[in-house]
């Protein structure tokens, strides 16, 4: 049995700005371990560095100090070994490729042969319930469908780790809830470890096995909250008393860290209100 720790962050700092530019400490002494098969959410106000932390895990930006170890290797090596799949806030689909060809993209880079690529892309899109849209182009799909294509693409080569950076931030609340259930279904099916950055407290609680609460300036981990809601989680989970308790616990922790009243809470409240008004 290999090391059950998929992500190990030790003393990670990230400082932006060099020379005469003003220096911002985006992340300060971050220690975090994520075990195989976990679903961990990073939540915090804007500017708390949660996206930066995700990018450090994915070796898309280097830490200023400390170590990022993924699958027992330095993050850079893990990236070269294609140990993780990435989903951004925007789907980032290539509009000149069909849905199917978008999912095939990483497989082409990995040098899979054509037959295997087609089989896997079809399988993944079937899993995301996009089987009827193989030959559509991205602009013909809704935002939620596009994001599902992005998830299919990220999972196509079966990475050990899935990194998701506010993947549903641009979706309306209804679609977001549906996508949350969808992600859980896939996670339960594939057993992939997920690190999930979000602004939304309900989303973090609904999805996660642990919620990592962060505070801003400098970005620190203030608390890690275990989410002991039973699985499989369904729409009923969202109505359970324990769910509300945990949502409250996360909210209070964010408030203590200065998160609410500035960005995250008011932001999501304003968003909810705005969507209500528009819808």
């Amino acid at each position, binding site marked *: 049995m290999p090391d059950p720790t998929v992500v190990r962050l030790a003393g990670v700092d990230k400082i932006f700005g060099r020379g005469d530019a003003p220096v911002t400490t985006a992340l300060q002494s971050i220690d975090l371990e994520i075990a195989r098969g976990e679903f961990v959410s990073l939540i915090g106000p804007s500017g708390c560095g949660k996206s930066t932390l995700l990018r450090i895990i*994915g070796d*898309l930006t280097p830490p200023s100090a400390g170590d990022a170890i993924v699958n027992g290797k330095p993050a850079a090596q893990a*990236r*070269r*070994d*294609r140990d*993780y*799949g*990435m989903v*951004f806030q*925007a789907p*980032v689909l*290539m*509009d*000149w*490729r*069909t849905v199917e060809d978008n999912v095939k*993209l*990483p497989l*082409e*880079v*990995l040098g899979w042969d054509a037959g295997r690529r087609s089989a896997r892309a079809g399988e993944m899109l079937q899993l995301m*319930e996009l089987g*009827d*849209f193989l030959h*559509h*182009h991205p*602009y*013909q*799909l*809704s935002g*939620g*469908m596009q994001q599902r294509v992005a998830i299919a693409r990220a999972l196509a080569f079966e990475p050990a780790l899935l990194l998701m950076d506010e993947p549903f931030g641009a979706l309306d609340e209804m679609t977001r809830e*549906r996508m949350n*259930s*969808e992600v859980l279904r896939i996670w339960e099916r594939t057993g992939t470890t997920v690190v999930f950055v979000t602004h939304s407290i309900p989303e973090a609680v609904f999805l996660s096995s642990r919620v990592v609460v962060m505070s801003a300036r400098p970005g620190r981990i203030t608390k890690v909250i275990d989410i002991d809601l039973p699985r499989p989680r369904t729409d009923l989970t969202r109505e359970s008393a324990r769910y509300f308790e945990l949502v409250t616990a996360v909210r209070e922790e964010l408030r203590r860290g200065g998160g609410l009243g500035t960005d995250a809470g008011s932001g999501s409240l304003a968003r909810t209100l705005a969507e209500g008004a528009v819808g």
Partner: protein
Amino acid sequence: MAAFGSGETRPASARARFGIGRRRQVLLLVAFVVVLVLLWEGVKFLGGVPWRALGTGPQGPVIHNPPFRWPLASDLNLPHIWNIVLVLFQPFQRGSDVTVMAHVVDAALYTWREAAIGFVLGAFIGLALATAFVHSRLLERAFVPYVIASQTIPIIALAPMIVFAFGQSVISVVIIATYLTFFPVTIAMIRGLRSFDPRAMELMQSYAASTWQTYVKLRLPASLPYLFTALKIAATASIVGAIVGEGPGGVADGLGRVIITYNQYYITGPEKLWATILITALLGIAFFLLIRGLEVLTLRARPSAASG
């Protein structure tokens, strides 16, 4: 589609809208030509030289006598459009059974072949240069100023030098066409090869894709709209280059020689030069439309490709 309701796809009405736009475009073009002809003949009607109208009246042939005499509207400066059309069907030389149209179209096709070779060469050179420049800031800083400087030299000055170096032949003409083509492609592609979505670049990074894979799967496809914009400019530029080059290049079979010849005989037959200009313009438009067609075909999957 079990968990997600239908109606999630957007209606693909782009094609329908595109069709309507196409019809309107054609109508607009026809209207433009009609207005131009009316304006042209209107000026001659008001200030041209008297002419005999078609048909006869009760007192013999009807002569139209314009109220003014504008030098600009003389038959030398502004021949009647019907005479320009008619001259197309006359022999291009006394006693020949080859019409002006056949003669000029032949020359146009010859010139087009030179231009097309120069165009393809220029496009590849431009692409190669831009590729080098976007991968190396050093090369970009060192050589882009020279690329720009190269275009400040008038082609009239440069053409004799090229002919001197490569001899009086089609090769020189092709080189001149190439020279006019590579520049817009280089400049556009420096931009185009950097026009990718930066997040898509991170995606490629997350796959640990090689520079080549990133180039082929991201940079190049993302740059195609820029490439086609440049190619449309280059298509017409290459024809101009070839025509201009044919003079010093000593190429007798192309439009360059036809234009020079009809220029020399302009006093005796201005319609021939006008007819040649007409066919030259049609050649340029045809080349442009060919590239435009390729563009529509290549970019049809992209939502913004219908415009332009």
